[in-house]
């Protein structure tokens, strides 16, 4: 039995709202009780737009000043549209954080490849920040990021900062571009072949649309990365976020509880099944 208070959101204020792309905003939420919020990179919160509804949103980092939690949201429907419309000082409900995080400790001692597609960079950003904060624990670190178009690249300034570092490889590509774009064009899976990592000791963390993740897994497998060292952030219809309602059931797992980060060898057989 789940106590009723577990379903009650905490009223939280938006402390800043930053536009990332035409339809995507990053909201900074006040830290609960004025303290730096504890979460594991890869986890999500349920955000409730009062009178509209509730949606699961990955935590995309901690504000550098103030310690508020960042959530990067794309206006894709009425609820997310209402959330992206919130201005500084507005209130929304928050429950969480929920779910599993990226295997940052498990990856220590080896190379780490993060592969992000589109908005999938948001849940991977705190993972990369953590990897860089504990840089000495890891071998080579690479971020491979694919976006739809140049103007839809998320966190552009931070990507450029990472790219200037000498201890992390950052490769960015877009699916569609005109001749005024001077970066790479092509799908993110093509970057796997170009990236420098030792497949035998590599942990991969992948987040993006499921089709993109399936093809990324295929490219990583071809490169020699073991199934048990690939981790995917899954998305299903999360409602209660407590593993109770069953809406996010994905075969034997509830994505809200056993996921969203799941090891590939655990979900391998289910991933391409259209019935699940």
């Amino acid at each position, binding site marked *: 039995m789940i106590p009723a208070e577990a379903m009650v959101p905490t009223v939280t204020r938006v402390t800043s709202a930053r536009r990332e792309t035409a339809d995507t905003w990053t909201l900074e939420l006040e830290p609960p009780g004025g303290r730096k919020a504890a979460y594991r990179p890869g986890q999500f919160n349920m955000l409730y737009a009062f009178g509209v509804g509730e949606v699961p949103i990955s935590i995309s980092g901690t504000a550098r000043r103030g310690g508020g939690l960042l959530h990067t949201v*794309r206006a*894709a429907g009425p609820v997310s549209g209402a959330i992206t419309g919130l201005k500084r000082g507005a209130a929304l409900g928050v429950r969480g954080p929920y779910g599993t995080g990226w295997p940052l400790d498990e990856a220590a001692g080896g190379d780490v490849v993060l592969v992000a597609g589109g908005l999938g960079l948001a849940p991977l950003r705190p993972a990369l920040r953590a990897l860089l904060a504990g840089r000495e624990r890891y071998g080579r670190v690479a971020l491979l990021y694919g976006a739809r178009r140049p103007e839809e690249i998320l966190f552009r300034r931070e990507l450029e900062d990472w790219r200037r570092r000498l201890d992390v490889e950052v490769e960015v590509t877009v*699916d569609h571009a005109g*001749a005024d774009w001077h970066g790479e064009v*092509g*799908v993110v899976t093509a970057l796997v072949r*170009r990236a420098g990592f030792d497949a035998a000791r590599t942990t991969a963390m992948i987040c993006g*649309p499921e*089709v993109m993740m399936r093809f990324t897994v295929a490219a990583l497998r071809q490169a020699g990365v073991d199934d048990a060292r690939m981790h995917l952030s899954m998305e299903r219809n999360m409602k209660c976020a407590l593993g109770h309602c069953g809406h996010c059931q994905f075969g034997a797992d509830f994505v809200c509880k056993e996921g969203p980060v799941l090891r590939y060898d655990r979900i391998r057989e289910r991933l391409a099944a259209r019935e699940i």
Partner: protein
Amino acid sequence: MENLEQVVKEHAFFRGLDPRFVALLGDCAADVRFDAGAFLFREGDPANHFYLVREGRVALEMASPHAGPHRIQTLGAGEIVGLSWFVAPYRWAYDARALEPTRAVALDALCLRGKLDEDPALGYAVLQRFVPVLIERLQATRLQMIDVYANPGAKKGARR
């Protein structure tokens, strides 16, 4: 003078190829350089070469009268540019333009097709390298076509 046979042998595309075949390919090879902005080839032209990129970056583009060229793909060192040399009517289906100073090995298509016709074992070995590239580019095109990163809210029926 640089030994092009050695360059072909060490290029990622032909790595591991039987030395006998490498020698045959070396007969068809030439060292080429392109300045930034120069075209390797243009859509509709005869597909007389294909290129093993050694340094630099090449964009594959399709011209469009009102929107400017669409950039389909960028390729770099260790990759190949050009597939149409292998299939009749041997005409390029897009433009290829160097984005930065680019160095490549150009393999003469007529010379190469002649050698492949004469030696089916060489033909098979080359096909074994070409087909994975074809499949990879076909898959990439599918992914680009289904527009995986599009906002689902732009599609009918989006709920959240």
